[in-house]
């Protein structure tokens, strides 16, 4: 009966070492807003639309300048992916890869509070993450939806700290 025990031990070891794949469904990231469309909204007209009108239509922005000279609205939508959970050596870990589509609308205003430079950006990137036990890491988003980079990358005034 030694062969039965050998098969049982081998089977158990294989089950423990084998990864369990799981799909990552598509959908907006939990902390993302969902009302950023593809492109500059048609209601926004340079030289005409006011800051008030923008906010009445899109709501509170995700990022704003200390002097209100620009506002940013952004979203992150996961396009899905695959993950793998691995159990080994009494611990557990996992790796995953997924695609995320980022959208960011940056609106600059003149001193009268009228849109002067509307700018829409969209990027789709593949991201990875992984971890073992309590340690893990993941790739940095290819577009910052909180607008931390906006002053430097767009030559704008500093972002307000809430």
């Amino acid at each position: 009966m030694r062969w039965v025990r050998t098969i049982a031990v081998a089977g158990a070891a294989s089950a423990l070492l084998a990864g369990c794949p799981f799909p990552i469904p598509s959908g907006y990231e939990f902390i993302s807003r969902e009302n950023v469309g593809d492109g500059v909204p048609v209601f926004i007209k340079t030289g005409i639309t006011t800051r008030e009108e923008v906010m009445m239509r899109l709501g509170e922005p995700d990022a704003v300048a200390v002097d209100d000279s620009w506002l940013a609205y952004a979203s992150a939508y996961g396009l899905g992916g695959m993950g793998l959970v691995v159990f080994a050596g009494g611990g557990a870990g996992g790796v995953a890869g997924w695609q995320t589509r980022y959208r960011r609308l940056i609106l600059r205003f003149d001193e009268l509070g009228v849109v002067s430079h509307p700018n829409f950006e969209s990027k789709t990137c593949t991201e990875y993450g992984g971890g073992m036990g309590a340690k893990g890491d993941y790739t940095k988003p290819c577009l910052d939806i909180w607008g931390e980079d906006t002053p430097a990358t767009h030559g704008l005034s500093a972002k307000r700290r809430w």
Partner: protein
Amino acid sequence: MISRTFLLVALVAALAGCASTPPIGKKDLLTFLHDGKTTREDVMLHLAEPSAIFEGGRIITYRLDEDEGGYTIAGARTQGWCCKYSLVLSFDEKGVLRRHSLVRVKELLQ
């Protein structure tokens, strides 16, 4: 008798696990808002501190969520969207509500 009591307790415990949180929202939370009448003070008294202030206080915003009972005001502002709605209010130079808009930012209806 003991087994019947035990079964009753077990049943109650099992059902309690299925119970959902009772709604805390208020359907009439925003009914006090009237353009041209409501003042900034009225708004602060009803809704407390706004989540953000723009143009020196001329425009203020609140974050609201919704349950079966109605609307609820979100707590302190955090990075990222917790809630379904953004309430935007603009005031005139006398502090009277000029315009307001309840914008749906999450779970958009298709």
